[in-house]
């Protein structure tokens, strides 16, 4: 089936991508801005909401699909990526994006990321990184800074934070970006590029949680954020991308260090579903198979 997913004739305004359900997030939550940025991206691309699915896991951030007018699947903690992979492989014509939290993506669901990325499945993975587990009320997450106090680590966590950007570069994602919820316009533009990208695209969006993370706030990040767009012309340069991505956590040790946002890496490679399509042609795939002929291959 051919579906028109992106279509400039679908002139929906950003707010028309929202459902009638009002978000239940706390006032000041960064995820509002992420929702707005997704709506902006959908609107400027002319996404047909009937042909798009937003898949999430569990967490505050993972409620996002419920507030949207497109198809959505609010699944299980850590499992949004496999659910989305199944959708994409069975219905490649759909637009499928994943909207989840940092705990969901990098901890419980961490095992799924390398595989979706290295296979270059045409999905857009949007992680709302508040550096905390919010829904379960303040436990440290894999991106929490060292020494952060959580309900299970009142003495401050002993863990070092992981760097999702360098990880995704290593895993083989073909589009790696970082954005900041405090800048919805730029974020919307990066999401737009990610959706347009054919292949596995990944955006880590710094999306503060004013309720449980009083360190990594909008105010903390605003003066530190800088755009890499000017100094990083060749986005296919993986080493350069890697170095820039490495610097993303410097600020946790060095108060002077800045936090890069923008597209770090973008290369074109055949997507997984395009390779599957080739195989289907090779094996003479048909929607109206002759079952009798298939059985006869097993004749005694």
């Amino acid at each position, binding site marked *: 089936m051919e579906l028109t997913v992106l279509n400039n004739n679908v002139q929906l305004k950003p707010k028309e991508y929202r459902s009638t359900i009002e978000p239940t997030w706390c006032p000041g939550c960064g995820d509002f801005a992420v929702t707005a940025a997704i709506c902006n991206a959908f609107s400027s691309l002319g996404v047909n909401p009937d042909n798009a*699915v937003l898949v999430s896991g569990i967490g505050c951030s993972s409620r996002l699909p419920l507030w949207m007018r497109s198809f959505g699947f609010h699944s299980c903690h850590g499992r949004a990526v496999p659910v989305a992979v199944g959708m994409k492989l069975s219905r490649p014509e759909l637009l499928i994006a994943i909207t989840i939290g940092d705990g969901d993506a990098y901890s419980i669901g961490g095992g799924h990321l390398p595989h979706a990325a290295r296979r270059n499945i045409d999905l857009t993975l949007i992680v709302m990184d508040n550096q905390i587990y919010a829904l379960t009320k303040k436990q440290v997450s894999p991106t929490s800074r060292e020494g952060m106090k959580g309900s299970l680590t009142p003495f401050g966590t002993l863990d070092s934070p992981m760097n999702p950007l360098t990880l995704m570069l290593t895993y083989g994602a073909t589009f790696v970006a970082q954005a900041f919820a405090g800048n919805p316009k730029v974020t919307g533009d990066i999401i737009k590029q990610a959706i347009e990208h054919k292949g596995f695209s990944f955006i880590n969006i710094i999306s503060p949680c004013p309720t449980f993370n009083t360190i990594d706030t909008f105010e903390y990040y605003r003066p530190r954020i800088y755009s890499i767009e000017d100094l990083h012309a060749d986005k296919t340069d993986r080493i350069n991308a890697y170095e820039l991505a490495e610097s993303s956590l410097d600020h946790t040790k060095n108060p002077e260090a800045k936090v890069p946002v923008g597209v770090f890496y973008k290369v074109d490679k055949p997507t997984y579903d395009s390779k599957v399509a080739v195989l289907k042609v090779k094996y003479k795939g048909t929607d109206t198979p002759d079952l009798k002929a298939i059985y006869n291959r*097993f004749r005694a």
Partner: protein
Amino acid sequence: MPNDLIIRIAGEGGEGVISSGDFLMQAAARLGVEVVTFKTFPSEIKGGYALSQVRVSEEPILSQGDSFNILVAFNGEAYAVNKKSLTPGTVLVYDYPGGDFEPEEHPGVHKYPVPMSKIAKDVLTSYISKNMVALGAVAELFGIGMESLKSSIHDKFIKKGMEMVETNYKAIDAGADYVRKNLKKTDPFMFPTTRPRKDTIILEGNQAVALGALTAGCRFFSCYPITPATSIANYLTELMLQVNGYVYQAEDEIASIGNCVGASFAGVKTMTATSGPGLDLMSELIGLAVMAELPLVIVDVQRGGPSTGMPTKHDQSDLFAACFGSHGDTPKIVLASSDVEENFYMTIEAFNLAEQYQTPVILLTDASLAIRVEAIPTPDPSKIKIVNRTVYQGSIEEGEKFQRYKVTESGVSPIGVPGTFGAAYAATGLEHSEDSGPRTNPETRTMMTEKRWRKIANLENEWKPVEREGDSDADVGIISWGLTQSVVKEAVQRLRAKGLKVAALYPKMLWPLPVKAIESFSASVNKVLVPEANYQGQLAELISAKTSVKPVKFNVFRGEPFIPAEIVKKVEELYELEKAGV
């Protein structure tokens, strides 16, 4: 039974034991006789004791049988393992001289020494043709049509060239030749009279599941390799591409069931296949499919547990896991099939039920059934009923809103499929109202829980999930499930032939338990026996819990299926007790 012959070939993994059995099987099917195989092999890749048994008969074959009439022993271990079954009247064909053992005295046993290794090495200069030499000898001894045997060998090796075919013919002929020149037949066993070739296909248990899925319309299959389920995927990979579907090797079982849940949401029929440990990992997402009301088929090819247990061995001990795995109140359907043909049709039923009731269906088979081979009548696709979910077509009417979880009398609601205008909804594993919005109020919770269970409440009447056979007022009634059913069927025949009044009930659906059928069956018999290949008596426990019946348990848990003689003996004991009024 008339001309009912069991040939057991035993040796070491890698010696061609399994392929010899397969050739015999195929030759028999081509000769129009009834045939069923039974195999066991070790978990090790190479070496270890392997067995391939072929049972042929003029009458339909119900089980693997009790033991063998003819043992073909490739080595000393094979002989040692089986020698206690060399009872008077049986036949031993063995590798001698030149083999690695010399058998003891076995009074009454017909012994045929054939120097298989020696002929292979000296005459044919290739040790690997030993099994072919043995096959030739067996064919000559028992009158198996040489042409059929050769034609199945031809079809297997022709891909590797005619030279390969000729080499194997030569080995077969050498074996037959040796018998003709050196041995005198002393046993009475002969291959059944051949009939006109029937319109049959030869399928292994797992192959039947794969073809059933394809027939039902499955177009996405995701799995993670695990013995003994993996070959379902092996059989499907190319076939799926030919029907524009895809088989995906996921990174783990959690991913594979997640993939299936996603594909089902996207409107595509989907299945995964696994074994015990994988089923455990899938529990959480099976619950998600229950909550999101998505059709989905999970095949659990049971193996010996707990934990890694015995990966290649028979066991029927995942029934509790299938019925009760996954947290919360999770209505799902559990089916089990008893033979290869049923694997095919039961897989289709699993899809039909999943689609109709929008809920996961778990189909239980097991390690022995997975590799059992049967020649079954070629299915006629035009006669097979296929059910598809009720898809909401969308509406442009002003103000109409799609209610994905609309509460209906049957509990089944229309599904929205991405790509349909007006059908958009967000599925969630959270409790939700009719429009799929999350809700936790008591009314919604109660209403939705009831709706989900209502879907399957009447299944026993809507879908006839049991078969019954035997006397209408029997002294002993047997209730069994899975592969054990095929053994019980044979036992019932034997018992009735002896004049005992017995009956059997064969539930194909185990959850929801067909309570009415079980109650009325047990009301018609004096005692109920439940034989199961597990320690706890899992079906017997379910019956005790859900009905007023108090069954007698009969359990084996040795990694091998029951044999009919065991069931016969047990029933006779119960029968005597019953007669004595105990």
